[in-house]
């Protein structure tokens, strides 16, 4: 997806996002204005197709106008400015990009943004309030040192939260099996399983 020639004023958009988010936290985020003007000219020049998609990200309506090829992962990171969701392999093999769509864990790198219209997306940023207590799973990862470099951690945590929501009674071997879509190159796996076992109890209470 990178290097496709589409004008994407990423840094400007991120700043805009932060400003808008800070100034009008309750208002829907309308991010299409800047990218649309740039990209309309682009479409005329290249024939590439733009799509405007409105979805719900962490409880807020977000409208993204982007090339049809844009994945949900790139939409979140490059357009909405939520960079907690990580790009690892970008081919559905590593799980770093895991988010929830309508409550289910999915790979945002293999999801087209245009196919998420009206869907409710939760990212790592949406698990807990900025100033509030951490989600029990986030806290458990800290308590049990369940990461080293941390790059896979947002995907691990999003996957683990969905896992416990799917079935709160899982055993350790079942957790290992059902977390196999999240790869950790630092091999923090034993601590990740321990953290999930702790959070499982807290999430159930």
């Amino acid at each position: 997806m990178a290097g496709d020639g589409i004008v994407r004023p990423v840094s400007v958009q991120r700043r805009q996002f932060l400003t808008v988010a800070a100034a009008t936290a309750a208002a829907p985020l309308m991010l299409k204005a800047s990218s649309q003007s740039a990209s309309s000219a682009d479409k005329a020049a290249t024939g590439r197709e733009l799509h405007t998609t409105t979805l719900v990200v962490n409880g807020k309506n977000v409208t993204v106008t982007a090339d049809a090829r844009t994945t949900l992962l790139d939409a979140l990171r490059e357009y909405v400015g939520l960079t907690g969701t990580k790009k690892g392999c970008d081919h559905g093999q590593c799980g770093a990009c895991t988010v929830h769509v309508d409550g289910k864990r999915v790979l945002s790198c293999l999801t087209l943004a245009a196919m998420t219209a009206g869907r409710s997306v939760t990212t790592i940023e949406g698990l807990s309030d900025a100033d509030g207590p951490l989600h029990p799973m986030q806290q458990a990862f800290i308590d049990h040192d369940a990461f080293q470099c941390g790059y896979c951690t947002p995907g691990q945590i999003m996957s683990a939260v969905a896992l416990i929501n799917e079935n709160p009674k899982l055993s350790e071997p079942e957790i290992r099996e059902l977390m196999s879509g999240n790869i950790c190159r630092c091999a923090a796996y034993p601590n990740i399983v321990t953290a999930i076992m702790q959070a499982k109890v807290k999430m159930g209470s």
Partner: protein
Amino acid sequence: MQPFVFSRSNSPSDATKRLADGADVSTSPIAGGTTLLDLMKLNVMRPERLIDINAALSDQIEKVSSGLRIGAMVRMAEAARHSVIQSGYPVVAQSLMLAASAQIRNMASLGGNVLQRTRCGYFRDHTVPNCNKRISESGCAALEGSNRMHAVLGGSEKCIATYGGDFAQALMALDARVEIIGSRGVRTIAFSELHVRPGDAPAAETTLRRDELIAAFVLPSLPWFRRSMYLKIRDRDSYAYALASVAVALDMDGDQVREARIGLGGVATVPWRANEAEAFLKGKVLNDGSAKAAGEAAFADAKTHQHNSYKPVLGAQTVARALLAAKALEI
């Protein structure tokens, strides 16, 4: 990724009509996207038009007079945890749960799952010039290349790429049928007639026409399908493609086999039915010896290459293990 025009379809008639139109534009339906987007990023698949068919086809599992009808848009995870499938068709539930990762199982539609493309590394790398599946008459790099994962059954001089799915083997073993919808109406075929061996034209993988979509799968209702299981042997315990896998269903009369159904995965170019092994077992007492002989019968015609001579041995043992495990099931 090559640019494409994206649109949604809300009905089967609209979707199939749009697939039929514009023969000059390469068009692909998209459901879960887990195969397609991966291969589009690799420039292996380059559709100019994508049609989102998620709202066009059924995502329901329902009992019908001919058995259990599973809509093509049912997700792998939904089918795997469905109570009727778990109790009446364990081989189906297991084949799904032993496939992919939890995230992919939430995304991938069953219609798309059976149409997944091979994991052959030469097919997936568009810079490799010789792949008959990608470029007609360009040769096959796998024949003399790294072929440890490649097929020993159903291959040709043009292609030995392994069919990588799991669910399909269960459908083969249960004699499932496929409901196909096209711009000219609906037709139903045996699942075993969906895929075609590579032969001289490895690019053609199925008997689906350009304007056709898989609408549903129908599993027959036979009580003995409860005596079924899926055994998958892999390089690692989870989230890996099969080195060899076996879908088995047994109709037993005491220790004697009334009927055995055996689907093989990880070893063949298409979802594979082990007809020779099934014929061998009919009427026989199932024990260590007959199970081993059945496994060997399944691979009697295997053709190996430099790095996959282990496959007929592993495959035969996997068949034997699956048969004995299915026999031991309490149903």
